[in-house]
């Protein structure tokens, strides 16, 4: 009898351990680590909405129209001048280049191939003190898990009238990332539902959905951009001063021994 009790107690402990492991497995968030590319179709974000389609305030409309008046029909865009897309454009498409996600419990790093833009999403204590959060085109991002859904809140954005979805420096963006089954090729789909709140530019929240498809064993390519402008600058300076361009081997004379 005593022996049976021990066996039963052992079995109970084993069952409890199993239950505990199952609970832990259920609590573990999905792993989004990998390279992702724009899935077959997405709603919004990757196309340029007509000015009339965005719920712009009179202020937002005036700002956007001024920008478009200046740049429409020209080659001028942030990307042309090696300026990164910035949020929300980076997440909504990043010029349709792929992105890479590196996931750790305390930090998720998102690298967009275009202009090698990087977003760091901090969790819990890993977050920077508010006074250390530098405003920028991709802002400051803080993350949390709601079950299997990754929620990212982004602020500290700079004014970006040059985006397809333009906004002021008061914009706040909430993204909800979740796995959304597989596509016809069996690739995982990562769905991102975005809400941007910016009372300066918009009369109501701007809501868009983007779908990314996983690229098995994918690699991002390096994206160098400003170097050409630097080389042009050096060539210009050398010409102005009438000295050899050190980047041009033919123009540099080598002393003979």
């Amino acid at each position: 009898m005593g022996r049976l009790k021990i066996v039963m107690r052992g079995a109970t402990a084993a069952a409890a351990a199993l239950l505990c492991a199952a609970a832990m497995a259920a609590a573990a968030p999905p792993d989004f680590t990998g390279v992702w590319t724009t899935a077959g179709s997405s709603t919004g974000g990757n196309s340029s909405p007509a000015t009339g389609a965005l719920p712009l305030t009179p202020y937002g409309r005036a700002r956007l129209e001024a920008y478009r008046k200046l740049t429409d029909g020209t080659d001028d865009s942030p990307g042309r001048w090696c300026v990164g897309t910035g949020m929300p454009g980076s997440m909504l498409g990043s010029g349709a280049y792929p992105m890479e996600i590196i996931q750790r419990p305390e930090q998720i790093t998102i690298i967009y191939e275009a202009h090698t833009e990087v977003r760091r999403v901090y969790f819990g204590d890993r977050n920077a003190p508010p006074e250390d959060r530098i405003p920028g085109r991709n802002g400051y991002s803080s993350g949390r898990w709601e079950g299997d859904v990754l929620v990212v809140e982004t602020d500290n954005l700079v004014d970006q009238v040059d985006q397809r979805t333009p906004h002021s420096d008061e914009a706040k963006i909430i993204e909800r990332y979740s796995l959304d089954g597989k596509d016809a090729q069996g690739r995982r789909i990562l769905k991102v539902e975005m809400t941007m709140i910016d009372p300066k530019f918009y009369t109501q929240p701007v809501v868009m959905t983007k779908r990314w498809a996983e690229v098995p064993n994918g690699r991002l390519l390096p994206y160098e951009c400003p170097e050409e402008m630097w080389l042009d600058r050096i060539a210009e300076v050398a010409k102005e001063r009438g000295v050899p361009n050190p980047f041009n081997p033919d123009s540099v004379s080598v002393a003979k021994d």
Partner: protein
Amino acid sequence: MKQIIRTMTLAVAALAAGAAMAHHSAVQFDFTRQVSYTGVVKDFAAINPHMRLVIELNDEKGKREVRFEGHSTNNMYRGGYRKGMVKVGDTITVNAAPFRDGTEGGYVVSAETKEGFFGLRSSRAQDQRAIGEETRRQAEGR
């Protein structure tokens, strides 16, 4: 036929990769048409945000330089370009979506030298339209 299949596969692959960037004002180019040029490379740079190519033509219209734009280095690599494929002095054949204003040159849809080929191509007229459209989508980052 094999070639068509290969190029269409490339087109589909490019579509799947969605490789592109909205740097260009695509309105400058007529992506419904392609014009072929064969000349000698005078200037070439595989750079971002988009490539630069100048070739010298020498035909019944005389000797002249013609300028092209094209994809980013990244998308050129995805389209089959590799380092050393285009050098100053090489003979090159370029298929390009022409400038709308009639200027010679345009946006590179594909190019070939003795070192290799990159971009999208097909010998069938209906495919050329699809390839032009795909190139436009890449140029605009859609």
